[in-house]
């Protein structure tokens, strides 16, 4: 967060608000090089950046993977549209994240994490409404976790490009979370009405 760069929000921020990230230097990597007093050079990472890149990449891959599963299995139109959006949106984000990771020389995983694989096989074993609800429940938790991780990177990362990625991604992740919550509410209310 130490670099001076311009924030170009896709979302809602006026150009005049563009501002540099400036973090707590107590969290910089010990070997950080500075291009000016107090301003680290680009593409340097601290441990938060590196762990964030690992966890976000695994999570993003799981999102696309599960999205494909849901598109092929669900009968619910809203969920299919949602799942397709996850494939597109997280696919794009994974690419952006991958290119930052490459520039900053951070190795990232090539597949989802173990827990995500297990969750997938559990969800894959279900059918119909049970499948829909399990997929949505997974989506709520995964997006809650992603939102926390993104805020963590914004607050304590060192690599400015990665932090910009986090800032641009967070509002979208919260939107996805809201969609998953809304769909869950829709489905569970239907379930109650059917009883």
């Amino acid at each position, binding site marked *: 967060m130490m670099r001076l760069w311009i924030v170009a929000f896709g979302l*809602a921020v006026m150009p005049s608000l563009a501002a540099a990230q*400036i973090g707590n230097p107590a969290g910089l990597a010990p070997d950080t090089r500075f291009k000016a007093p107090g301003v680290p050079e680009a593409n340097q990472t601290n441990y*938060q950046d590196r762990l964030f890149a690992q966890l976000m990449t695994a999570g993003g891959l799981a999102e696309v993977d599960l999205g494909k599963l849901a598109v092929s299995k669900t009968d619910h139109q809203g969920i299919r549209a949602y799942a397709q959006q996850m494939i597109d949106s997280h696919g794009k984000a994974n690419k952006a994240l991958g290119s930052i990771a490459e520039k900053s020389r951070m190795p990232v995983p090539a597949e989802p994490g173990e827990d995500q694989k297990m969750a997938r096989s559990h969800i894959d074993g279900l059918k119909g409404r049970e499948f829909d609800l399990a997929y949505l429940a997974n989506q709520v938790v995964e997006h809650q976790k992603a939102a926390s991780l993104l805020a963590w990177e914004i*607050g*304590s990362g060192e690599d400015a490009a990665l932090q910009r990625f986090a800032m641009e991604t967070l509002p*979208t992740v919260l939107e996805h979370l809201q969609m998953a919550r809304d769909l869950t509410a829709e489905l569970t209310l239907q379930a109650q009405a059917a009883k």
Partner: protein
Amino acid sequence: MHTTTKIALFSATALALFGAAAISDPLPPDLTYRPLPSLPFSKVKQTDEAQKPAVMDRQHALLGDRYDLSDRTIADVAMSGGRKGVQAGVRVKTAPGGEWDELASLTPQQIRDRNLLPLGFLPLPHVKQATGGQVFPEKQIGEIGRDEGRDLRRFDVDFDLPDHLTPEFPPPIFLTTHPELGDVSRGDLLTIRNFYEYMNGIVTPVQMEGLRLLLTPFPQEEFNQTEDRKVAAQSTGVACLDCHSNFHTNAAFHLTPDVRPQAERFRLDTTSLRGMFNQQIHGSKRSLRSIEDFTEFEQRTAYFNGDHVSATRKGVNLPDRPNQVAMMAQMQNIIDFPPAPKLDSAGRLDPAKATDRELAGEKVFMGKGRCAECHNPTQSFMDNAMHDLKLERFYKVGQTFNDQVAIPDGPIKTFTLRGIKDSPPYLHDGRLLTLEDTVEFFNLVLQTKLTRQEKDDLLAYLLTL
């Protein structure tokens, strides 16, 4: 089957069912816990000092974007000590196409979709969100430096608001035990050096001891002896009344203890301690049920970090509940609101003393403006409850401003409006600069569609409280 086998089988099924949860890793610990510095103190200090001009420029740019920061006071109105004017006018800037009357005619959804919510209504970031911590205004730093030789200046940030937008300093002190005396502050700031001389003869021995403790500095998060302090020399710490100067507020700010991760913590503007005797819940979010609980706990966690772990490392003061805490509480509980000569005992305007405009304002307050639904005149203009104003109906959550991620405020305690002209800036984080700003804010949030005249009347009324 043996019971043990049954249990084993049961656990195996449970594991198969809930296996995913059982092996899933928790998020990294420093989402919740404060990491220790990874660099030596000298290096951190050097970098912090080098960053400081950019930090201040960035914050001033944000403030300038959001607010009109000029120095314009309301004619013939002063704060209760008579030493400082009350700032006039709506200071929150509107977006083009989103002037106040237009905003009032739109739905929350329309305002959100068209991005028209004035930015000054959004949460106000700390001057350096990633570090956070307590930041004192210049006058407090100067006075404590002169009187006690204690350094309250941080090397990484300065106070960000112009002095004319903060409360009068030092503020007057009114006692419930001596209404006949009026302001007993002698126009000076209470410190550990002068409190005995100033208060001897006015307070009881118990209150005096409570006052001494409230003025005694203890090591805290940014002001202590370890390498993660943000003050140049090892510090003896901070006292309660460094923020609550003369039991009021000097607008020193901090981050809420109640939220993590760090980027989502909201700013906290110091509250006044006037009228605590009538307040049933304390803290904007914590809803602590007594002044004793609040007093005891603030010291336990090094003032507003919600972090007993790092507080313990820096040294905590654990005041003894039946003796010290009780005395600190009893001292706080005799601090009165400033006099409001136009109000009767039930908090209503006396028609013989109030102007027509003030009376019209009271009518708006009690009726169309809906203010009294939460700011109840018989309860010191509080309701001892928390309310969710749901401001996020009007904007997209999750955007980052100066490293702060704007998430919904959620339920916040209703603040008193007694003596309200004395305590700018307004709301829990100080995001509103004038009373006119608060009128526009609540007019929008409550969708009450007040007219220009009704807003003006309401302001006249608020100034009588």
